[in-house]
């Protein structure tokens, strides 16, 4: 499972230029968490998660929204993609679309985990 989680983050980061992206990354991470829940128990999954799933969802929505709002500060229209000039080692170039993609990633994980835990604990 740690491997899958790391892989999902890898997918998320490289998504803009190579195959991958926040959506797929989120799904892969979710799969990892689901398998964990099946292997042990939903309760174990809940214990594993640092925050409640709905917090993940709201954090994801918020970061997607913020990524859209950042360009407003520089006087550009909502949701203009902004990029830092210099790439950061390992991660590569970062910019607001990456933040946006992170939002998608978090929302996907949060939503599915939330639904699953709700179902499983019912």
């Amino acid at each position, binding site marked *: 499972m740690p491997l899958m989680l790391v892989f999902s983050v890898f997918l998320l980061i490289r998504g803009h230029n190579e195959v991958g992206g926040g959506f*797929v990354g989120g*799904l892969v991470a979710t*799969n990892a968490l689901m398998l964990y829940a099946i292997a042990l128990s939903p309760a174990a999954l809940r214990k594993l998660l640092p925050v409640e799933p709905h917090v993940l*969802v709201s954090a994801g929505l918020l970061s997607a929204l913020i990524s*859209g709002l950042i360009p407003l500060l520089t006087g550009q*229209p*909502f949701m203009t993609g902004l990029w830092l000039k210099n790439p950061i080692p390992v991660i590569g170039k970062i910019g607001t679309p990456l933040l946006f993609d992170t939002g998608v990633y978090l929302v996907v994980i949060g939503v599915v985990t939330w*639904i699953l835990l*709700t179902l499983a604990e019912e």
Partner: protein
Amino acid sequence: MILLAYSILLGILVSLLAPLLYRQFRRFSAVLAVFPLAIFIQLCLVIPAIVTGETLQMTVPWVPGLGLSLNLRLDGLSLVMALLISGIGALIVVYGGAYLHGHPFLGRFYSLVILFMTAMLGVVLSSNALLLFVFWELTSISSFFLIGFEHQKANARAAAWQALLVTGSGGLAMLAGFALLAKITGSFEISRWIESSATIITDPLANAAFFLVLLGAATKSAQFPFHFWLPNAMEAPAPVSAYLHSATMVKAGVYLLARLFPVFGQMALWPVVITALGLLTLVSGALLALAQTDMKRLLAYTTISALGSMVFFLGLGNELAIKTAVIVLIAHALYKGALFLVAGGVDHGTGSRDIAVLGGIGRAMPFTAAAAGLAGLSMAGLPPLLGFIAKELMYETTLDAALPGLLTGLLLVANVCMVAVAGWVGYQPFWGKPGQKDLHPHEGSTGLWLPPLILAILSFLLGILPQLTGKWLVAPAVQAVLQIPAKVKLSLWHGFTPMLGLSALTLLLGIGLLAARRRIQPAITAFWHALAKFGPASMYPRSLHAVLSFASLQTRLLQNGYLRIYVSSIVVVTAVLAFVTMALRSIQFTIPTFQPPRFYDVILVGIILIATFLVTRARSRLATIALLGSIGFSIALIFLLYGAPDLAMVQFAIETLTVILFVLVLYRLPKFKQFSSRRARIIDLMIALMGGVLMTILMLMVSAPDSDAHVARYYVENSLPLANGRNIVNVILVDFRGFDTLGEITVLAVAAIGVFSLIKLTAKGKPKRQVPVTGEKNNASLHPALSRSPLLNALNAGVFSLPAHSRTQ
């Protein structure tokens, strides 16, 4: 102006921080009033510029793709409104702190009031209609929360709903009207509409646009027959009633009509419809007021009447009438705001607002009584208060209009009622005979009597300085409405004119009515009570009930909880609509030349076919799931082989997830016991065939060579330079169509909340039966995210039309 614009936007931030500030500085929370006060002072500083005919503007592009930008514009009309909003806002914050002292939700109150103020300033400063709409709805929403402030009370909740539904649906109509205007002129800028007024009023859509916008204004400003929400909104705390429901928000509709007067004013319909609407509201509001005994409801009905008079004068539309409308607007905001605050103070000091009970409390509450007296005199229209000037002008305008006899007569009736109500609220509770002995009145803290007193004194000051009022406040506003320079000379004394005679007559009759309250009021109440079941207020529960029963009908019909019905109805509807469209447009498609299939294509297609056949024969859920899974994985492999790695990856992940989720809920689901009948299967087969044929045709059309190749080329060419990414699919998702994706993840989040609440809430009521149903729904909720636009768009443009490019990846 820039400073002003930013300080208004700052309001949203202040609103968010207000509860925190309140928690930190509990005792000094009235310092929040500094914020509206600062805006008020800034506005005062620009008055000289506005008087010379300048308008201040600023523009920040916001969502240029939608034609939406933050265009703010300050002219005379906006200035008057903005001064009222910020000035009264500051007083309301102070008053609210005292009125709700120690209330557990005081922090929330501050937050909502500041939010409302920001929204309201936005409404009067927007020069872009879409922006105006956004702020307009924001005022409705903050009004909803403020009316429902005492949310433990069922009445307050119902009143909040009612206000939101009435003004909200009016707002939607208004948006439709704006859209029509934008269609005619090609712009959402109000200034453009004014320029092209001649084109607009000759357009065939003009009438529709006019009535739709009017609907928005009439619901917001509580015009007949939408007036009923306003008295019910009196469930709100007194400062809210004073601020939103008399001084500012309800004037938004009047403001909108005044703002659009240069656009629609020359229409033949304008004088007829607007005048009739205003007159009806003016008279009915005043007469309805007579039946009330609650101070706030009395004031609410007279507010409706006053709003009606403003609309009426806007309808007449000559220079004198516009001038009158502006003066009435200012005078009304000042005296009515003060009286509402007084009503709150009386309630606070005695525990009652019933004028049948109250009396003789003036000695114990001298400052409140003084404020009430001054404001009441202004409402009754006595010199030297601003209300007097307003009333003289009203009579002058109607005497000058067509049908002077009728109009003046109706106006007289309404004004007589006003005088009476002013006495009932401003005089009798304080100096009249008490209906009950043990009132124990006491004066509240300074914050409770100072704000109404300030407003009342302002009515007095503006009244004794009529030239200044006319020049600095009224003239610029009149000029903004008429779009020509206007000179306004106001004075208290015109000599012995017919207007003065009418004023005196009004006063005499009014005082007669005032004194006779105890004798006549029961009769009036009984009369209106008998009429009530024909009134528009009874339409509200009826239409609400109709909507609800329609909703439950269509829920039973469409949302019956059986996944198979959902699937088949979706497929049938889609297929029928698509086929009809194709037939109507006689769409043609060519069958492309096929490349010879490769051997792994054959194998995969073979697997899919066999699995599909077996699914229909499967006798256990586990087998079905496994077979469906193998179909999904084979499709993913095909995606991979044809150069759509992103899609394949998503498909793999989704398939895995679906299987996992199925496994989780599997043992909760019942076994396949009943199999469908032969007839049902044939029907299902037909539906499936329809869907299959449709998809085949669509695929053929999509793969036709010329289909939207330029869209694909655009994405391919601009992906790297514009969006800095080489993965076109992802770039489309997060950048080009990022707005859609934002919407989608929101939908996803809402779906999750829905699943959560469905399961958690229904679990309490009827636990067993609901489980499989919601279990099925939950899978359905995953798919919309996949099937909606950006991804499809990406597939369409980035993948299928361009196999050659993608394969090289």
